[in-house]
C-alpha cells in the first residue's frame, strides 16, 4: 500500500508541475486578449453602428462598415472604416495603418472637398467621430504602452491592472480590465484618474461565436462623470475573406471597394 502511494505521488508530481506551468503569465493573457479583440482571423469585415447619447439624453447615430487585414498577428494591421450615415459624414472614409514599434498612420477622406486629411498620432485618445470611443479603442491600444499586473483570478475572469508607461500621453492614471478566462475577450475595462476615481467604463454587452471566433457584437463606453455614453453594435461579421492588400490604399478612400462591402 505504501509502495503504491509512493508511486502515485511520484506519478502525480509531474502532473501538478504541468498544471502550474499551464497557469498563464500576465504577458500571455494580454497577448491572447489582444489577439481575441483585434486580430481574429487573418482579416475581417463588419457592419457597425454607434448610438452616441449625451448627458441630456440627446442621441446621435453613426453607421459604417469596417474592413481589416492583419499583416501579422499582434503586429501590423490595416483598417478601413467607411461611413454611410448620417448625411454629413456619409462617404467619409477613415483609414488606419497600425504599427507596433512606431506611431499608427491615420487618414480621413472628406468627399465634399476631395480632401485626404492626415490625423496626427498624438490624437489617438481623441473621440472617434464624436463618440465615446477613442481612435485607439477602434484600432486597439498597443499593449506595450502599459505595465500590467494580475490582481485577481476568479472562476471566469482574469482581472488585471494596467498603468501607462507614459502617463502624460493619456487622460487616465490606471485602468482595470476583466478578461474572460475561456475566450480572452476583455469584458469590462474601467479607467481611473489620479484620485482613483472611476472616470470611464467599457462594457461588453454581447458576444457571439462567428466562424469559431468569439466576437464582441455589442459594447458600450460610458463617461462616468456625466453619464453620457456610446453603444456600438456589429452585424454581418465575417472573417478570413482573403481581402487583397491593394484595397487598403489611398484608392479606397475615394472609391471604397464595394465588392468587399456587400
Amino acid at each position, binding site marked *: 500500500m505504501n509502495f503504491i502511494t509512493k508511486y502515485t505521488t511520484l506519478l502525480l508530481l509531474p502532473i501538478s508541475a504541468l498544471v502550474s506551468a499551464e497557469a498563464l503569465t500576465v504577458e500571455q493573457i494580454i497577448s491572447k486578449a489582444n489577439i481575441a479583440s483585434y486580430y481574429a482571423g487573418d482579416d475581417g469585415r463588419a457592419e457597425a453602428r454607434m448610438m452616441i447619447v449625451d448627458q441630456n439624453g440627446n442621441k446621435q447615430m453613426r453607421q459604417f462598415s469596417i474592413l481589416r487585414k492583419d499583416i501579422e498577428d499582434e503586429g501590423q494591421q490595416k483598417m478601413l472604416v467607411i461611413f454611410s450615415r448620417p448625411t454629413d459624414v456619409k462617404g467619409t472614409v477613415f483609414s488606419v495603418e497600425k504599427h507596433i514599434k512606431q506611431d499608427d*498612420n491615420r487618414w480621413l477622406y472628406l468627399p465634399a472637398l476631395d480632401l485626404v486629411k492626415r490625423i496626427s498620432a498624438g490624437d489617438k485618445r481623441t473621440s472617434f467621430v464624436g463618440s465615446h470611443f477613442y481612435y485607439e479603442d477602434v484600432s486597439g491600444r498597443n499593449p506595450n504602452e502599459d505595465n500590467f499586473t494580475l490582481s485577481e483570478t476568479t472562476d471566469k475572469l482574469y482581472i488585471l491592472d494596467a498603468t501607462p508607461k507614459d502617463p502624460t500621453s493619456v487622460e487616465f492614471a490606471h485602468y482595470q480590465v476583466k478578461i474572460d478566462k475561456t475566450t480572452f475577450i476583455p469584458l469590462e475595462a474601467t479607467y481611473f484618474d489620479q484620485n482613483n476615481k472611476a472616470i470611464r467604463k467599457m462594457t461588453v454587452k454581447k458576444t457571439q461565436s462567428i466562424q469559431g471566433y468569439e466576437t464582441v457584437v455589442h459594447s458600450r463606453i460610458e463617461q462616468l462623470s456625466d453619464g453620457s455614453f456610446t453603444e456600438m453594435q456589429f452585424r454581418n461579421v465575417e472573417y478570413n475573406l482573403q481581402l487583397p492588400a491593394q484595397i487598403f490604399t489611398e484608392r479606397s478612400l475615394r472609391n471604397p471597394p464595394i465588392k468587399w462591402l456587400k
Partner: protein
Amino acid sequence: MKVLNQYSALALLLLSQSIANAESGINQATASMFSQQEQQSTQDDLWGDDWEEEDETLSPWQSSGFVELGYGRFSQNNVTPSQQSMAEIRTQLALKYVADWGNINSKTDLLVDDVTAQTEFDIRELNLTLNVIPDTDVTIGRQVITWGTGDYLFLNDLFAKDWQSFFAGREDAYLKAPNDALRILHYQNGITFDLVYAPEFTADNYLNGERFSFYSPMTKSIIAPRNFPVTTTDKEQFSARIKTTINSIEYALYGYKGFWTTPTGQLTEGVNAGKSYFPSLISYGASIRMPFMGGLFNAEFASYNSTEDSRGTIPTIANGQLRFLLGYEQELFTNFTGAFQFYLEKTKDYNAFKASAPMPDLIVDEHRQVLTARFTHLAYQQRLTTSLFAFYSPTDKDAYIKPSITYRVNDQWQYSAGANIFLGDKQHTFFGQHQDNSNIWLRARFNY
C-alpha cells in the same frame, strides 16, 4: 424687404422646429432611461429603428441632402450693391448609384440668393466613375478635386476655388469650385499616378464686385463694379500628380499647364483691350507630409512660370512666382489642436517687375510672407466646434481672421456663426483691400 421678411419667417420656423426636436429628444431620452431601469437587458428603445429593416446596402441607390439658410452682413458700409454678404436658402440633393463597375454621382444645389437677387440651379457634381481597368479609376464629368498639403493656402492645387463663398462664410466645402474634367487615377506598386484633363479652363470664382469690393490700382480706390470686364478662355488645362508613401512619409510631385485661375492679366490690344484676362501658366512642384514630434509636418514648393511674360517685363501680366510652405499641426491639449503655417511667395524677375510697374510704390514685396494659425476646440462629443483661423502677413502688414462656432444639435440640425475680419495698414494689399468686406454670418442647416 419682402424677401427679407420671408427669410426671417423661415428662420424662425426652422429654429422653433429644431427646439421642438431637441425637446422631444429630451423626452425620448427620459422615457428611454425609465425603460432602461425597468428592463436593462433589452436596450431596444435606445436604437429605436430596426437595423434589419433599413438595410440600405441592398439598394445601389443612395440619396441624401440638406436645406440651409445663410445670412451675413458687412460690419461697416461697403460700396457693394448690397450690404448683405450672404442671404440665401440652399437646398442640396445628392444622388449616388454604386455598382461593382463604378458609380454615378450627382450633387445639385438649388440656391435662392437674395444678394444677387437670383435663383441658381448649381450642379456641383455630376460624374461617372469607372473602375473596370485594373488598378485604375476613371472619373468623367463635373467633380471637385483637391491636392497639396496647405491649409487654406494653395501652391500646387490649381483647381478652381470659390473665393466668394470663402469670404462669405459658406461651409468649407464651397471653397472648392467643381471642375468639368476627366480624371485618371492609376495605382501601381504603391505609387498613385493622377492625371486631370479639363477640355475647357475653369476659373476661380474670384471677387468681381458682385458680392465683395476690391482695390482698383487704376482708380486708386475700393470699387465694386457692376460689370467686371473679363474675357475668359475655353482652352484646356492639364494637371498631374505622382504620389507615394514610404515609411509614413508622403511624397508628391505636381505639374500644371493651363492658366492663372484669377484674371491676373490685362489685354492691351484688340477688341477686348482694357479687359482683364487669364494669362497662361505652367507650374511644377513637390510636397512632403510626415509625422513629427507627435504632430504632423508638411512642406510644399511650387514654381509658377507666367509663360506670356517669362522675363517679367510686361506690366499688364503677372510675373512668375516661387511659392514655399512649411506647416506643423499638433494636438496641444485634449480636444484642442493648433496648426501653424509659414508661406513665402517670391516674385520672379523682381527688378524687371519693379521697373515696369506703373505704380512702383504699390507693388507687392519681393518675398511676400504669410503666417497662419488655426486653433480648433471640440467639446460635447465634438458637437461644439470652436475654431479660429488667422492669416497675418508681416510684409503686407495685413491680416484676415476667421473665427467660427458650430453647434451640431443632432444628426439633422446644425447651427454655425462666424466672422470674416480683414485688417490692414494700406488699402491696396492682399487682405488690406478687403477691410470693408469684413462681415459676420449665421447659418442653419437641416440634413436629410
